[in-house]
């Protein structure tokens, strides 16, 4: 059962990674326009001069 010493921290760390990712997605306003984002991916136009 000693393996738990590694496994539990690893599982919590991975979960925390997911949580951090979710926070990032909220912060970067990815839920402001879900319909628009779903449609933008389908547009056939390409932005040749994207901002950095």
């Amino acid at each position, binding site marked *: 059962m000693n393996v738990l010493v590694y496994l*539990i921290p690893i*599982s919590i760390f991975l979960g*925390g990674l997911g*949580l951090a990712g*979710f*926070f990032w997605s909220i912060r970067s306003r990815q839920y*402001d*326009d879900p319909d*628009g984002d779903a*449609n933008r991916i389908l547009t056939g136009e390409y932005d040749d001069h994207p901002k950095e």
Partner: protein
Amino acid sequence: MSEVQISACPACVAAPAAEETAHARDVRDTRFVLSLPAIYCAACISGVERELIKQPGVRAARVNLTLKRAQVEADEDVSVDDLISALTRVGYEAYELDAGAISATETDRKGRAILTRIAVSGFAMMNVMLLSIAVWSGASDVTRDMFHWISAAIALPAIAYAAQPFFGSAWTALRARRLNMDVPISLAILLAGGMSLFETMESGRHAYFDAALSLTFFLLAGRYLDYRTRSVARSAAEELAALEVPRVTLTDGTVISIKDLAKGALVRVVPGARVPVDGIVVEGASELDRSLLTGESLPVEAGVDTIVSAGEVNLTGPLVVKVTAAGEDSSLHRMADLVAMAETSRNKYTSLADRAAQVYAPAVHLLSLAAFIGWMMATGDIRHSLNIAVAVLIITCPCALGLAVPAVTTAASGRLFRAGMLIKSATALERLAEVDTVVFDKTGTLTEGKPELSNLKDIPPHARSVAMALASGSAHPLSAALYEAALAADITPSALTDIVEVPGQGIMGRLGDVNVKLGRAAWVDAHALSQTATYLKLGKEAPIAFTFVDHLREGAMEAVAALKAQGKDVVLLSGDAPAAVADIAARIGIEAWDAECLPAAKALRVAELTRSGRKVLMVGDGLNDTAALAAAHVSISPASALEATRVVSDMVLLGKTLAPLGEATQVARSATRRIRENFAIAAGYNMIAIPIALAGFATPLAAALAMSASSITVSLNALRLKGKP
């Protein structure tokens, strides 16, 4: 839950002057918000953005498809009208929105805060559940204690952060010596956390960390659904308000905000515009459409010294109006007292959820107290008794109840929003479901307030051509309708000379050497009919009347038919003349109607119906309907209504058509049924779980299973609403 307002500019609070400079900077950094009601696809997004970027001076443009809006960053010299006309040219309907009125929804802090809390509690719940599986499947002694300690380390901080909204609301309620749903919730969460910590320290067998967390998680999910429904409704309502940009044009051509207008100022009102203030005409002659205020469909004459009220529409000639009252003091706000009185009676309505909570909260506390005392007396073991009391509290906790209502209202209001209907009040759906009588207003609600020529076939052919030629030169609604009807009947206009429009009277011209006139009865020496009409005089011939009927609003027939099919009584109350009301009632199939109703009479009729035990749905748009709308059990107004009217309505029809009315009552009925079913499901789970908990057989595993199963069942039941018409 009270939000602390944090100023973005601390200096502003200290020095009001600083605020002014800060705002001045905002205005210079022009940022337009456009409403784009017709966009729906990927091509629209790029089309609108490309078109906006092409305009000189526009630095950036971004479309939000969810809100159907575009934000534009542009230089100071860019005019919004240019952007709108550019978009209209390429086929996208666009309106300017008052950026100040809708900025609040942009930084949607509260929604994000709830989402963050959901994420934290969800993350903690999953981890603790994983650890608990080991305990449930038989870990013992040191291993179990270790798992419990790790769970505690995850759960306690997560609860302290995520459950704050419940603690806050429960504390506010307790301080006011009330009980709300959040009191048993907070108590359950705190007791479960505290008891589990104690058990862990004593290396006991049962810890409820996972239950405390899943309780928090499911309830937060319910909160979020509730919040979203409200914020969507609020932002759409704000959008409607923002569409009315309150500006007036002074006689010297300057455009100012209505707030800065002083009494005695002279305001110019062009034909086709709404009169923005109360006042007296000092110059010009025209006709006024008062239908929004009184329900009359017949325009009235206006000349020097005519008293005009805010909300009337100027039809033919330009007017200069001397302001007697503007904004808050104007007649638009005069009915505020009537409305406020009626509102208080409706605010007494307690929703199903509140009624459930009133029974539920004390029952839960008593039950768990009884369990504690009972076990105390039977065994004398405090720790064991407390454990059972906590188990009862957790198992009865209103997880499903907290989700039952928000899940259904979210599904229902989402469906109605797509059908073109906006729900503003939280309890409106439940009230709509109880309705058995529907009262309609006529002008502007069942009809579009737009006339339609009704007797073209009775008119001699030569008169048709002359009338068409005269009508083509005017923007008056009757002329426009006449011209349209003649055009549809393939009539060729006769060649006239010297066509002159006499504001407030009519149009005159010459056919060869015969004088021809089209206009008001008195002006052409005709005998005025009792219905809307205009009169044509050819030289010395007897005047010919062109009669008009109101154009029915789209979907009015369907809505009335659907409501009648559902067994509801339909009544028509109008401020218009009896002949016009009778005509509409007959065309649409309403037997019960009343004409020439004053605003107070309408409200009285609605109140009478209410007293006789009816639940009245009032549908109206005018200022004369406002009191009746407020007095009714539930009220709906079209988007074309005045702002004051929309404010008192529980629901707003976003499109032009009335057709969603029939669907709305059905959706409301089925939503209320779902809410009741959900309560029954939750009660059913409790019925099984409470005896088990009272008997002391409830383990953390049983609690987790009961909670998740009931939450999922009620959510699925709520979603059923979406599929079935």
